[in-house]
């Protein structure tokens, strides 16, 4: 590994000589795109907490898979899809029952902890990578699996996108138009489950918000057109993942830390600039009102007493 040289292309070429970096960039790119799109629907449907909870149930699944000697991704997929469908079947209101979801979430984390403890091998490294992600350790097989999930997810999204958007915005009318809200809820939760299982590889169970929610939360503040917002959301997730990988090449800190910090900084910047713009707008309006008042006063009192 060499030092940072201000020659971006040269630096990236240097990085990509290493197979693990190629894999990290490949998987990171696919996952950022998926997280950006699904995250937009998560924000629009206000299911952020449910998505977060899905990731936590995934922890138990991944830990169980480690215990059984299976690829953790399969444990993740199994647990997130089952709990996702269960949540959706209980109805949309179930996805907003924070207390109940939180109760199950804590239990699942505890269960995962037990599985990890039962496992004889390297307890700390496995736990660490499931909780916080380990994109630099991703294997070629895992990249291939991620690509397969990516293709399936995008194809399904192309089919269900419009009804999902419609039911997110106006559930009662969507239902009256003949859409099954229950079916759409299950499809949505399955999409989230797969996306979360993919994203966990990069940022882990605990930091999944940073790819699934924050980029979309930034996007909805920047555009009120769903197409543009999704593009921005993808862009933010992609940019943060690439930049995180790039910086982590030079700095001895985890990639997930850089990714979460970058999206958080962007989120803060957007909120701050919008608050500033609003404040300036209000001040302008207030000033125009006072100047109008002054004019009015001058008219009603021409002698200026």
């Amino acid at each position: 590994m060499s030092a940072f040289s201000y020659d971006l292309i040269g630096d990236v070429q240097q990085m990509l000589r290493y197979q693990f970096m190629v894999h990290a960039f490949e998987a990171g790119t696919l996952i950022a795109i998926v997280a950006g799109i699904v995250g937009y629907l998560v924000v629009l449907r206000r299911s952020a907490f449910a998505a977060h909870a899905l990731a936590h149930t995934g922890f138990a699944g991944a830990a169980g898979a480690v215990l059984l000697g299976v690829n953790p991704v399969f444990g993740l997929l199994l647990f997130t899809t089952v709990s996702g469908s269960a949540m959706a079947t209980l109805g949309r209101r179930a996805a907003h029952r924070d207390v109940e979801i939180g109760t199950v979430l804590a239990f699942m984390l505890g269960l995962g902890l037990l599985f990890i403890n039962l496992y004889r091998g390297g307890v700390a490294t496995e736990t660490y990578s499931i909780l916080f992600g380990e994109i630099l350790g991703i294997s070629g097989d895992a990249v291939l699996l991620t690509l397969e999930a990516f293709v399936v997810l995008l194809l399904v999204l192309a089919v269900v996108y419009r009804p999902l958007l419609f039911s997110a915005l106006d559930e009662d009318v969507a239902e009256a138009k003949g859409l099954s809200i229950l079916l759409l809820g299950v499809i949505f939760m399955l999409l989230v489950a797969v996306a979360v299982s993919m994203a966990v590889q990069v940022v882990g169970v605990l930091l999944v918000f940073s790819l699934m929610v924050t980029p979309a939360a930034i996007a909805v503040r920047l555009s009120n057109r769903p197409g543009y917002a999704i593009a921005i959301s993808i862009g933010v997730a992609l940019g943060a993942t690439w930049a995180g990988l790039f910086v982590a090449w030079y700095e001895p800190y985890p990639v997930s830390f850089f990714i979460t910090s970058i999206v958080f900084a962007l989120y803060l910047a957007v909120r701050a600039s919008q608050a500033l713009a609003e404040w300036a707008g209000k001040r302008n309006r207030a000033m125009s009102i006072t100047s109008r008042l002054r004019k009015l006063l001058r008219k009603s009192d021409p002698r200026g007493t």
Partner: protein
Amino acid sequence: MSAAGQGPRTPPSSAPATSVVRANRLEVGYRGAPVWQDANFSIERGEFVAVIGPNGAGKTTLFRLLLGLHPPLGGTLSVFDAPPRRGSPKIGYVPQRHTIDYETHVRCFELVRLGFSGHRWGFPLSRRAETEAAWEALEAVGGAEFADRPLSALSGGELQRVFLAEALVSRPELLLLDEPLSNLDLRRAKELVGLVNGIVRSRGVTAFLVAHDINPLIQYLDRVLYLANGRVASGTPQEVLTSESLSQLYGVPVEVLRDSRGNIVIVGGEGHVEGELVGGEDHHEGELAGGGFRGGGAG
């Protein structure tokens, strides 16, 4: 108001029956608990119908029946000469509650466009038809100027116009509007009712409008469905809104009072039964006294 001149039309007496909605001994409710029963009414094409009644009288339930989302307990209901079925393209619906609030950062145009094509699966190759339809619907409700504004930034009256456009965009023949006036001040309420009336008259659309106050509507109405006490009274406003007919409906003496402007107050037992005293721009909320007058069951 632009459409104020166009009042209710006189029903064509000799024209062939063109019933859009017909109910015969209709019984409605949830799990064996009837909300109302023995309802008989027939709504003709192009009529503007107010659905009036106290909370829980089953007004929203009537809409769920018409939309095919809820089966009747007994009797028959036909919509366009067939049993109601879910997803009928001939019906435009504006529900009472929406998931939209100050956090919905999506432009209005998108919602209206989804009203046209949101129920279709698959990825659209061309969006020209739906885009044109959405513009047309927004223009019809005077909402073209806020097409690009986010739903989160609209006032109550503007939102109701967008919802109306969302319902109109598929060119329905029957409009079901559930309490569109409930969060509007009197001026906005009258504007919206004028807008709906204009659409009813110019397109021959049949409209049901649920309201708890009949006064902003009364000059336009062809028909009133009055739901109370587990029963339904139907007829022209002149027929239904009389002391005799409402006393019969409630089963206790009720008096219908009219002021010099034609506003209505309905009084029974110890006080107001339903409806508000409306004088000029002052809007007094009428207290629902006399709990015995409320229809039973859930709505």
